[in-house]
């Protein structure tokens, strides 16, 4: 097994584990972060597949912009909190709890 295959194996494992984490995490911030990690791992896989343009797009869009959009959505939905089942009535975006 050469270095390329080893890297691919590591990246695929990272991607699959964080995708499963995205499904089971109670915490929505953690789920968004896990989806960002999936995008980053997929970008590494694109580099290994000789697709530098796609890797750049995936890294910029998937790991950066999409995370920002989802985090802004979380903030406006009032889900921006680290404890999943907390009963907090007020807006959660005002407090720097991240």
């Amino acid at each position, binding site marked *: 097994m050469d270095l390329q295959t080893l890297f691919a194996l590591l990246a695929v494992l990272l991607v699959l584990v964080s995708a499963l984490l995205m*499904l*089971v995490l*109670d915490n929505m911030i953690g789920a968004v972060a896990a989806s960002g990690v999936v995008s980053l791992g997929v970008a590494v896989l694109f580099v290994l597949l000789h697709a*530098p*343009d796609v*890797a*750049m*797009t995936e890294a*910029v*869009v998937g790991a*950066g*912009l999409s995370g*920002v*959009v989802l985090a*802004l*959505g979380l*903030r*406006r*939905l*009032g889900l*921006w909190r680290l404890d*999943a*089942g*907390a*009963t*907090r*009535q*007020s*807006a*959660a*975006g*005002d407090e*720097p709890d991240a």
Partner: protein
Amino acid sequence: MRNIASLLFTAGLAFLLLVIAAQLGFGEPPMRIGGDILSQAPAEVGATNIVTAVLLGYRGIDTLGELSILFAAATATGLVLVRGRKDCEHHAEEPPGGFILRTGADLLFPLLLVVGFYIIVHGHLTPGGGFQGGVILAAAFFVLVLARPGKDGSGGMSHTAIAVVEGLAGAGFIALGLWSLWDNGDFLKPMLGHGVMGELLSAGTLPLLSLAVGLKVGAELAGLMTQLAEQPATAQHPHQHPHPHSEDGGS
């Protein structure tokens, strides 16, 4: 019951995908069109980066359609969010960013701007192009918004300016296509000669198209993020009860 049906569905999907993957040759794509493009693109377009040559040269109309899809998505987002903003009267004051955040944003902004424009104008030479550079430009402006959210969270970004830049860039893309149609009868065909391959001013109109795509994508995404960042989360529902999260991600 529903979970069992869902599991059966996804198991069937996985089986189908595995069957398809088993029938594909590993690492030996048929690539008829791809082979032709790889052999002819250097002489026909003159761009070093063949992906950009396909994106803006051979499949320019596809890119135009993609831009219009993005425009439709951004417009629909604005429509949904702006209609909701009226019935939400009380604005919670956005806390200002700290000193480190503001200084870091000021230092980062020109750097991100330079990187974005570099990636846009070198799209036909190196990996990158309008989409990637445009997203970086949007990020550069959004860093400023995050550092100084201002009164309504928009950070002083004017939607009119964003719309003007976006409209001009889109009109420029179409105008380049129409110019090509007027000149030699083909819509969006690369023109102005090829130049010396590998130089910055080469590949005809591809850098101009790339600039138009970058400005349009950057303006659209910056407007989209600003709209999402405006009007921070308020208690929308009077009897809103935070329900316990009860997802069963497993079986």
